[in-house]
Every structure is written in C-alpha cells, then in structure tokens.
C-alpha cells in the first residue's frame, strides 16, 4: 500500500504549537507511507489540489490528513480523494488541532502527540477497505407530524413540488398555537388572517392527506421506506358526513366542558368545533363529558344532526401509510408554571398565562375580544406582565430562554393599551431579548408610544389581598434592580409569560422516530450550526419549536427548509446507504443470535443459507454503531471501517513499545 500524509498548518492554528514539518518527517518513517509533507491550508482549493496531484504523481492508494476534527472536514477530504480516483473510504484524518494544538501548550509534547495521532491514522488506514454504497428505491411521500404553522408550511411546500404529503395532527383541527393568537408581532397583524388561508390550502391541496385527531402509533423501516401506523382517534362523528354546520354544538346540553382551544378560560359543549376557521371544520365529541357515551342518556346531537353523522360507538382506527421521509413539527407546550407557589401556583383566578390572555383579546375568543378579569369580570386597570416564568430558571430545571416571550409580551402590552386606553401595563423583565428585523424597534414602541412601564427585575411573589371596596387585588412584589429598591404594584390582573418546552409526548414520539431529545422535550438536530434541520436518523427532519424555541417567522423558515431537505432527498431516483455498516462472515457465524438480541435497530435478521441458520445484516437499516461487533464472540460480524483489526491496530500502535 502507498500512503500519503498531509500535515496541515491551519495557518497558525496548528503550526503555532506543533512542529508540522517534523511531524511530516516522522510520518515518512511509518509503514507504507511513501509521501509526506506539511501544507499551509490543506482544506483550501490549492491544498486539496495538492492532494489530488500527489495521489496521481505517487500512485497513492490511501491518504492521511492531519489537521482539524474529522467531524469538521472528513466529508471534504473524502470528496477530494474521490476526485483523484480513490475510494472515499481510503482516507483517514488525524485530529491535531482540536485535540492537540488548541489544548496543549508544550510544543515538544504536542509535536510528539501529533506524530502519534498520525501513526494511529496510518495504522488504521492500512486496514481500510474500499466501501461501496448500496442503492435502493424511495417512496416519494413525506409524513408531516404536527399541523401547526411549521408543519403546514412544510406540507404546502412539499405538496407544491409534487410530493405526496401525509399530515398527522393530534387535535381535531390544524393551526396549532398560532391559531390561538390574536395578533402577531412586530406588525400587529391578525394571526388568523395570515394563517387561515394556509390552513385552507392544506385542506384543498390534492397532494395532502390530512389525519386530524390522530397520532402516530408506530414507525418502522428506514429512510426512503418508512411504514407508519396512524391511530385515528374516535371522534364519534362520521367526518365524511359532517358538514360542520354546528347545529349539534348549539343543542348539546352539556355545557361545562373545559374549552382546551380557549386555554380553559371558558367552557364549550361536549360536541364541539374548536373555532370557526377550523380545518377540518368537523365536530368531535369529548367522550369524557358526553352523557350519551358516559351514561347512555341524551343523544340530542344524533337527533338534530341533519346528515346523521353521529356515531356513538365509534372506535379508534389504525391506518397504515408508506412514506420515504418524515418531518416532525410537533411544536411546544407551556412549562407547568403551577410549580411557582409564590405566584399562587394556579390558584389565583386573575393570574393567567399569556396564551389565555391571547384568547381573551381575540375577537373570536370567549369574551369576543373584551378584556375582563376572570374572577369578577372587572375591566382591569393595572395589568402586570411577568416575563421569564418557567424560563431561565435553574431551580425548576428550565435554564434556557424561551426566545419569543419578550416579543409577545411587548405585543400584549401594546394590545392592552389598544383595548383599554386607560389601563396601565407594567412589564417585569430581566433582559429584553429582541434580536430580529424590526423587533427591538417594536419593544421600544411599546415604551415610547404606548407608555408601557418596563421594570427590570424578577417578581418575588404575588399576594392577593382584599381591597377596602371588597374586590380582590394582587400585590405584585418585585424589585427594580436599576433603582436598587423593591417595588410593588397593586394589580387587577397578572399575565405570566410562561416559557415553553417540547410538547407533551415528544419523548415518546422521539423513541418511535429513533431521534434524540433533550431534558426539555426538544428534539436534537444533527448539528447545532450546520445541520439544524436534519436529525441523526436519516430521513427524519425537524421543523418549528419541536427543535427549540423559535417564533413564527423562524418556524415557517424551518418548515420550508425541512420541505427542501425532503425534496433534495427525493430528487434522486434511488438512495444510497452509508456503507459503514456491519457485515457478517457467514462461515464464522454460529447463529447464536446475540447480535440480533443487542441490535438497537432490529437491523439483523436470521436467515437460512444452505440449510444453516446465519445472521444477516439489513444494510439499509444498520446504522453502524458496532454494538454487534463488540458482542459477537467469534468476531463474525464486523462493522465496516471500525473493524476489530482496525481498532486493534490503533491500540497496538499506542501500547506496544
């Protein structure tokens, strides 16, 4: 074998603390190394060209680049060697920047270490084999999980390009959180005016199949060929017959059902259509409250329904769909703010969440846009907004910033002034986070134009009291840290800007999707900066807040981005797998099944070869973790590119003196 070694200066990033020329010289003494040199910027155009030329000139059949982390530039250099006609896997990297030059100060020790890391790479490369990807067919349909604005955008973009879309929405209507909002920042335009047309587009687009009031039951398969089971939860209404006329909801005698769409600040009927612009605009019975379903009495809705759509004995239905890619757009839920006992823990009627306040201000909400406080219907005069409730708070395990609360609080304060010009709005904040186009100007407007009073400091407690007139007041005890004093406001109503976390059940879905998720229920992207839409499971993409807090424009952008990723994936006639997968040596395999037992992906199956049972790797499912290789006593199953012999060669290079 002929190996070429290229030791990168990375400007002064490496050269400052590693003697790269010496490393290159030492590398020449390693077995099979026939060419070695140090170069200024290996990843630059001339640097790569240099490698290509050296391969041709010296007839190299393997290349080692000693530079930065392979997590950074391995793909780059693989393409380089491929350009020169080598198999892309005949390449290894030695990480002498992040793991050497940037962390050690002793030039001698660093140089020695760099040379050893090159040695490791050479020893591994000597045992590398060319690997070739396998091709397979793709089902050109995409599953979009979640029908909020991010999912809607992704679905519309994908459908627009001709891709079939299956959308699954947990609620009985799409629209997500945005449908609940009254206005949006920084333009104060009407939320539903912007969103409703897109929702209608979803309903009307022939490429989109919508499953509302449904959930993903299970997912199997792999990129290009997923099989998804969808649970259509019983609605007790035959949606094919339901016209959304609303007669049933008018006549339903059960009126005490908490209205989830209105964030429980009002009640609705046991048969309900969440809001006038709902898509699909179909009625759903809440079986926990319906008298007919619970007690067998009533049946009013069935009597009044003009199309006979009511089906009291409906059961859940499981449907199966085949797709080639999946976009998760499951959004968020509010953090459980009732842990804040000092804010009443949910027991003070006039301390409400910002989302409840949105419903209160919305013209289509339960108060038709009139602001009345819940306890006694009084029109509030002093309204206090408290920011960062459930955000940036380590004591409740939510250390992160929820990102968009500063903006909507400013919006709500402005809207308050709009609705109630005589009211006073006080905003307790820690920092105003308003990066974004026209955002900071917006928070300034709240203060300059609308006279919203901003006070810098967290609120310590809300203490209800009874005023001389018998009305309940809420003493909000805060601090003005700029003044260096504790301050109080006697508020009529308090609006909490409650932080967000991954939506309920996100962890469960992540397990089904085999993607990672963090402590807060947010799905993990493949790379924070460079692969923010991809996940570590091929063919699964993320859009919207399910990946991390973001506002509407960012959610829409990520929805489009996810759709674009799917389009790129489907643009090829066939897909290729990553060939770094496990391979069974059938003569060594005794079919003990240990690999099958430990494989996290069910990627290994038992097959019969010439009458004998053997393990077999489904290459397109295998992700190359190598747990099987570490398990097989015979060494009969080897994960390509990280075989026992390759790792042993590295261990021996380090430990055998």
């Amino acid at each position: 074998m002929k190996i070429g070694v290229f030791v990168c200066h990375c400007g002064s990033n490496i050269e400052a603390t590693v003697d790269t020329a010496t490393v290159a010289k030492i590398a020449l003494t390693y077995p099979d190394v026939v060419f070695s040199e140090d170069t200024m910027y290996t990843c630059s155009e001339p640097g790569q060209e240099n490698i290509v030329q050296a391969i041709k000139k010296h007839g190299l059949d393997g290349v080692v680049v000693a530079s930065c982390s392979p997590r950074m530039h391995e793909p780059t250099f693989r393409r380089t060697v491929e350009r020169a006609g080598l198999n892309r896997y005949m390449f290894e990297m030695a990480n002498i920047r992040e793991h050497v030059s940037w962390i050690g100060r002793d030039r001698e020790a660093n140089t020695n270490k760099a040379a050893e890391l090159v040695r490791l790479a050479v020893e591994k490369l000597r045992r590398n084999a060319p690997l070739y990807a396998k091709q397979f067919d793709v089902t050109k349909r995409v599953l979009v999980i979640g029908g909020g604005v991010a999912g809607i955008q992704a679905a519309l973009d994908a459908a627009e390009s001709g891709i079939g879309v299956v959308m699954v929405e947990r609620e009985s209507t799409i629209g997500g959180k945005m449908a609940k909002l009254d206005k949006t920042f920084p333009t104060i335009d009407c939320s539903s005016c912007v969103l409703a047309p897109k929702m209608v587009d979803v309903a009307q687009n022939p490429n989109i199949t919508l499953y509302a009031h449904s959930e993903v039951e299970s997912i199997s398969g792999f990129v290009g060929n997923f099989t998804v089971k969808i649970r259509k939860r019983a609605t007790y209404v035959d949606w094919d017959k339901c016209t959304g006329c609303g007669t049933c909801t008018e006549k339903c005698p059960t009126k005490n059902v908490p209205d989830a769409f209105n964030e429980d600040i009002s009640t609705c009927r046991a048969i309900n259509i969440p809001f006038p612009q709902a898509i699909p605009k179909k009625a759903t019975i809440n079986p926990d409250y319906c008298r007919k379903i619970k007690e067998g009495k009533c049946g009013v809705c069935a009597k009044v329904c003009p199309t006979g759509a009511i089906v009291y004995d409906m059961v859940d239905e499981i449907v199966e769909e085949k797709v080639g890619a999946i976009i998760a757009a499951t959004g968020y839920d509010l953090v459980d703010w009732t842990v804040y006992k000092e804010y009443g823990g949910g027991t003070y009627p006039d301390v409400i969440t910002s989302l409840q306040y949105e419903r209160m201000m919305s013209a289509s909400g339960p108060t038709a846009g009139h602001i009345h406080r819940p306890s006694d219907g009084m029109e509030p005069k002093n309204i206090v907004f408290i920011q960062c409730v459930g955000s940036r708070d380590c004591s409740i395990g939510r250390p992160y910033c929820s990102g968009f609360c500063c903006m909507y609080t400013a919006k709500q304060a402005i809207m308050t002034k709009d609705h109630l010009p005589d009211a006073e709005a006080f905003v307790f904040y820690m920092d105003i986070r308003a990066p974004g186009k026209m955002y900071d100007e917006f928070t300034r407007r709240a203060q300059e134009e609308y006279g919203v009073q901003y006070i810098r400091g967290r609120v310590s407690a809300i203490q209800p009291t009874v005023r001389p007139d018998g009305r309940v007041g809420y003493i909000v005890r805060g601090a003005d840290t700029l003044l260096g004093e504790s301050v109080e406001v006697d508020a009529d109503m308090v609006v909490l800007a409650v932080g967000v976390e991954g939506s309920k059940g996100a962890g469960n879905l992540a397990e089904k999707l085999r993607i990672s998720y963090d402590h807060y229920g947010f799905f993990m992207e493949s790379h924070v900066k460079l692969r923010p839409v991809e996940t570590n499971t091929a063919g699964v993409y993320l859009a919207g807040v399910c990946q991390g807090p973001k506002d509407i424009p960012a959610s829409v952008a990520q929805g489009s981005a996810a759709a674009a990723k799917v389009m790129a994936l489907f643009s090829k006639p066939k897909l290729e797998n990553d060939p770094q997968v496990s391979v069974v040596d059938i003569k060594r395999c005794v079919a003990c099944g240990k690999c099958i037992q430990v494989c996290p992906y069910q990627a290994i199956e038992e097959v019969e070869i010439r009458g004998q049972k053997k393990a077999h790797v489904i290459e397109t499912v295998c992700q190359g973790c190598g747990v099987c290789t570490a398990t097989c006593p015979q060494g009969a199953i080897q994960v390509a590119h990280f075989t026992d012999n390759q790792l042993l060669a590295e261990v021996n290079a380090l430990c055998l003196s």
Partner: protein
Amino acid sequence: MSVLAGKELRIVGFLCNWCSYGGADTAGTARAVQPTDLRIIRVPCSGRVNPLFVLKALINGADGVLVSGCHPRDCHYSAGNYYARRRLELLKEFLPVIGINPDRFEYTWVSASEGQRWKDVVTNFTNRIHALGPAPRWEDVPARYDRPEELIESIRPLGCGEHPALPELRQAVKDALAEGLEGVLGWKKGFDAVHAEPVFMTTPEEVDSLIWGPFNVHNLAVYLPQYKGRKIGVVVKGCDSKGVVELLAENLISREDVKIFGMGCNGTVSLPRILAKLPEGVKIESCTGRGNKITVTAGGQDYEMTMAEVAQDKCRLCTKPNAVLSDVFVGTPTTEPAAPADGRLPGLRFLDSLSLEERMGYWKGQMERCIACHACRGACPMCVCRDYCVSDTRDPAWVTQEDTVQQKLFFQLIHAQHLAGRCTGCTECERACPMDIPVFALKQQFGRMIQKIFSYGAGLDVNATPPLLTYQVEEPTIKEHDLA
C-alpha cells in the same frame, strides 16, 4: 512507540464519535488547556468498545484507559451506551484479579456540547494516572510459582460406589433409543478403573457399558452443539445440566432435539489427587467404592482414600447435585445443600489474598507454564466458536503466535470475557489443563461480579436473558463514575 520520557504516561481513550469526541472538539475549540498524555481512538459508539480492547491496552502497557460515550438516554444509536455501561462496569470490577488497579480504567459520559466537562474529565483522569504512576510492566514483576494448596471442606456428604438406580437409568436410555433417539451421550469405563471416557451410545449393548459414579468427570454438554439438528440424548450431573440449560438459553441447541437424563450426583474425583496418592507410574488394576471411601488396587497393593481427600473442588461447594433441567430423572434426588457463605474455589481465594502486584506475578508464573494447547477451550461447553475462535485467526487478530506471557494471558482473558454471564462454573477448563493451571479463577471472578452487579447466575433458566445482552435505562446497582 515512545512516550515523552518522564513527562507523559500512556493513556488511551476510546471516544464515541457523536458525543465525547465532539466534546473533546468543543473543548479544543474553546482552547481549554488539558494534559497532553491522552491519545484518542475514535469509535462510532461506546457500545462498540469491546472490553477486550481495554484489556489489550492494559496488558500491553497502557498506564490508563478511558472510555467516554454519550450520556445515558442520549446515545446517538439510542442504546449502545447502555450495553457499554454494563460491560465496562463489569470489566472494572474484573481487573483486580489479574493484578491491574481498577483505577487505571474509567468510563464516563460527555456530550458534544460539554467542552468544559471534557476538560475536567481529561485533567482529573490524567492526574489520577500520574498519581498512580507508570503501570507495573510484566517484564519487571517477579513471577510467583506458589499456588493454592488448600483443600476446602465440603458443604455436603460426598460418596461413591454403585448408584442403586443405574439399571433404571440404563433401561430409560434403552427405551429412548428404541423410541428413535439417534444416540445418547454418557460415560463408560476407560483404560483403567479410575478413568472414565465419554461414549455415544446407539445400541443396547453400548448402554450396558454406561457407568455413573465419581469418575464421570466430563461435562458431556460440550458435545451437544456438534449434534445440533439431530435427535440425541445426554446423561448429566447437576453441573453438566447447567451447561445444557445455557446452550438452550443461547439458542445453540434446540430443546426438541435433546433428551436429558439425570441422576443425583454425590461428587466426582480429581484424578491428580488420586494419582498423587499412588506411586508414580504404577498400573491401576481395579477400584472399588463404598460410602465415602475409595479403594484403588494398583501394583498389587490396596490404597484407601476418602472422597474428602480426592473430590474435585467444585463438588465440595456444589449446590445443584441434581439436573436443573431433565426429561428423565432416575432415582432419588440428592439433598441440595444451602449455598455456602463463601463460594470461591481455592484459585480465587488464593488470588484474593494477594496484593495487586503479587497477582500479576502469579499470572506471570502461571502463564510461563502454559503451553498454549487450548485444552481449556476444548473442554468448555460454552466455547461454541470451535474452529473459528478469534484467537486463531488473522481477522480479527486478537493474539499473535508469539510465546509471551501477555499473549497467553490474553487468550485466557478472551476466554473469560466470552464466558462472562455464560459460564456455569463446571471448571472443565481447569480439569482439562495438562499443566494444572487454575484458569477457572478468571471466570469465577467474572461470575461473582455478575452476581454482585446483576444478581444473575448462568445456566439456571432457559428463558433468562444474560445480563450483558440486555440493559436497563436506570441501573440501580451501577454507580455513576463522575470524573468531572
């Protein structure tokens, strides 16, 4: 390859590509200054790290080995680190038996974003290794040739002589052959009265040669995998039956193919212990047993000995004298004693009494005597790789053919590691050793640690899942090893 003399020690790291390798990158990007000793080997997942890699490094002179993967629940491959946690925890507990300080090996979890944590891990681990100093070299450790001589007391009465139910057993075997079994594995008298030998009985005449008694030492389960797919029977002692159960549990033989014949066992003999009581080279003429006494007639003279003097060590502590699984059980079962307070056989007891460095010297002495005949492997019913043992191949090439203590010990470590969670404690490896090397101690060390961590014993339940082939998300018995 040389370590910077006097400055650095040899520390090898196995890092998961997705988390810890990224964490090390993050630390580097943040210019977090760290000790320079560590050399990182990138692996796809901590679950890829075969504990043998760690042993290889330590045996071959590494001063410290660190494995780091994704935090539990955060595995890039969803579950690899859970397997790693079990294997590596067990490995850490195993190390002292071969004289390696377990502090020289550590495993931990660092995510790609935890640059600071990585820096702390590297710094603390490197400092720890420096505090321990360079690992003792095999070349420098004085070899010891002393060995366990202790005769442990039996927890139950041992006996010999004709088993009263033997005719019944023979009849049962004959019946089974008549019903269509291809053959039944058992023992018959060997070249002299004290040596038995395995027999594959296919005819009633052969069945008449079947014996049962203290000379039936062989664990016949060893032959079962080669008959896979054929309908045969096997006669088992309690200890042998555990091997059958484990083979069944591991899907290496099928239940419907094998018929198990059991009888109560009263202990078997250690032939070296009998021979030691006779003049060297004398011809054994006959042997009779009664109660707990054996009388060997050799060179015209009678030698009397008790089972307490000549029984195998395992029989003295045996709690399963009857087959744990059988289709035909003949005669009255032997009374099962309660588990002894100390289940260690003399090999492990002796090792436990030594210091770490003495243990190294002990294995050095033992391995110098090893002739690498691999009889231990051949006798092991759980060594099912047969012709494809990883120690005999070039790919993978775990051991070389070099005749060194390290290579020979590494073979033993492969054997022990492959048996972790599977070894049923039949001690056939040790019985088969022509050099009388107490190799079972390595397996017993794994066995007791598996008992300690996972409360699991192999060969008792056909439906059990061996602890290394499964995991729990929360491992109540494994403490987090936090280096940061």
